[in-house]
């Protein structure tokens, strides 16, 4: 069972997150202060940390910095009500592996937690395979079965990202941050229209759809069902 440590001072938020993750098979431990969280993180060695930035006493970033200094490499996701880009950068440079602004959808948090737990995904391979999809990273070519797909550079990168995380739910914000590398959130359906194009290129009529929409959250690339 995957074990999470949540360090969050707001009871209700902590309760919602804990409940949501327990329902999905996680073992969730909870701390309400930075000091207590720091002790538990060292003592219980969880698989992943979720910490709020603003905590009474010792704040989230200090907890993270202390842990990293002590050599604790547990993946950490920082939650914060501060949404400024600089705040985000500060969160990541303090040792956070991801940063999520409040308010957030619980499904978005889940998708990011899953992504962090499945790291590392960037290997040295030159060929990616998902079901009948075959991507040659050296020749920059993609085939579905015997059919060669004609992709634009951006579509190629989008597909590569999805193939490396096949079966995982990827949110729109994650795509925008990782594939486009833009630090802003444009209109929500912008990613959808790009994904729609990719989907139409992946599957001709009659073929099963490989890219599935996860309602309200994002997308998942599946091997042939």
């Amino acid at each position, binding site marked *: 069972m995957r074990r999470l440590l949540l360090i969050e001072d707001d009871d209700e938020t902590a309760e919602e997150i804990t409940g949501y993750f327990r329902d999905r098979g996680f073992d969730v431990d909870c701390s309400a202060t930075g000091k207590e969280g720091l002790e538990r993180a060292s003592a219980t060695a969880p698989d992943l940390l979720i910490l709020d930035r603003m905590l009474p006493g010792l704040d989230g970033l200090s907890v993270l910095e202390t842990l990293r200094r002590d050599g604790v490499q547990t993946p950490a996701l920082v939650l914060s009500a501060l*949404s*400024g*880009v*600089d705040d985000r950068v500060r969160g990541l440079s303090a040792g956070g592996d991801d940063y999520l602004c409040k*308010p957030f*959808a619980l499904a978005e948090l889940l998708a990011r937690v899953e992504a962090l737990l499945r790291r590392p995904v960037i290997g040295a391979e030159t060929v990616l395979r998902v079901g009948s999809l075959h991507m040659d990273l050296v020749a920059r070519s993609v085939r579905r079965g015997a059919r060669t797909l004609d992709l634009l550079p*951006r579509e190629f990168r989008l597909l590569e990202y999805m193939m490396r995380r096949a079966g995982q739910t990827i949110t729109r914000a994650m795509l925008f941050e990782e594939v*486009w590398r*833009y*630090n*802003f*959130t*444009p*209109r929500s*359906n*912008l990613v959808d*229209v*790009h994904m*729609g*194009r990719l989907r139409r290129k992946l599957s001709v009529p009659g073929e099963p759809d490989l890219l599935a929409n996860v309602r*309200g959250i994002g997308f998942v690339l599946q091997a042939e069902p």
Partner: protein
Amino acid sequence: MIRAIGGWAVTLRAALRWTVFIAAGFATMAVVLFAFIYWQAASLERQHIDDVILRESAAIVASRPNDAAQALKDWLNADPHEVRYGGLFGPGGERLAGNLAVLPDALPEDGRPHESVFPTIEREHDPTDPEDVRAIASRLADGRLLVLGYDIDELEDVQDVIGRALALGLVLALLLSLLCGTLIAWRAQRRVASMHGAIGKVMRGALSERLPVRGSHDDLDRLAGAVNGMLRELERLVGDIRGVGDSIAHDLRTPLTRARARLERCRDEAQTVAAFQVSTDRAIASLDQALAVISAVLRIGEIEHGRRRAAFATVDLGALLRDAAELYEPLADEKNVSIRLDLQSEGHLVADRDLMLEAIGNLLDNAIKFTPAGSAVTLSLVRQHGSMLLRVADRGPGIAESERERAVQRFYRGEKSRTVPGSGLGLSLVAAVVRLHGLRLVIGGSGAGCVIEIVCPDSESAAPADPGDDCADSGLPSTTAQLNA
């Protein structure tokens, strides 16, 4: 109250200083004036005396030797004011004629008038008080010496009169200056008091109050004018904030009310889990809309406070527009709109690439939203009059001239676009980004389409503006609304 007394003390001190200043000025002026008058009068009188003794001396010297004593006697006799002295002395200094008992010492025999003192005179006269005279000594042809003198008591009289006048004048001048100082101080105090009153009203919240201006264009007047200008700007800003507050309240309340109503209804009416989910999904969508408004407001605030300047680097404008076009092309395609990329020039700008892309993206988003299906949105990079122009043009309804200035304000939504969804913050965000970079936003175009330009003054060396800078230009040209950084 304490402040009022303090103000009074300051005014009083200022008044005293004024009074002393003015009095000293008046006194100096009076002394200088009287000294000048005295000097003028005295030299005129002396000149007159000198003329008299010169003329008479010349006449006696020129007369026949036998007539000289008689001529001297005649001159001395014709002297009702007893101011004439004279003596005729032998070559050895013995007295021959006239009312001078002895030859005065130290009088040069050069026939020119000199200042001298005659000690012994045959007339009723106080021997301890020798007469001060203008005197002249001339040698006659036969060796006799003629000495003529003229009393300068009259000169002393003039001096006395003028001295008295000076003393009297000084007293008058001082009195006058005291009066003037008090008057000026009193008037200044009255104006300061009225300004105090006006400022007090402003501080209590009456922002429409103005300081009194008399139209005299003096220092106080100009200061009051400047303060009034500041108050006008403050009043405008506070009005804007109030308007923005109302807009935020509206844009937040609408989705929140919807979410609340949906949740309430589904609690009472939902019969199945599916129906419950549909309702909650719609409620969540409404909440997301409200959250998007909050995020956008915070984001504009973040940009406006210049917190993003760490990320400034040289940005290739052509590549920027290509990226923007690529990002929005599928969206345009879905609406059957084409994006025409028109890169007539190359250019670089020191900028935050993400923010610039976001700004261009917002403009493109708007253009795609408003342009009719089947038409094109043009994205161009043009060099014009030494400036680089990033231009987004569409064939939509455009922004009316009267609305252009307000279009860049937060939450403004044009009359024609009320039915199109959006937070109404797009252009405000663009304006904030443009301001942060020290660029200029120009909204133009006619009824058949909207043209929005971001003007980069000098593409090679444009430096970001000081974050403290504000929109300075309020005098808008008739055809374009400009937002200056």
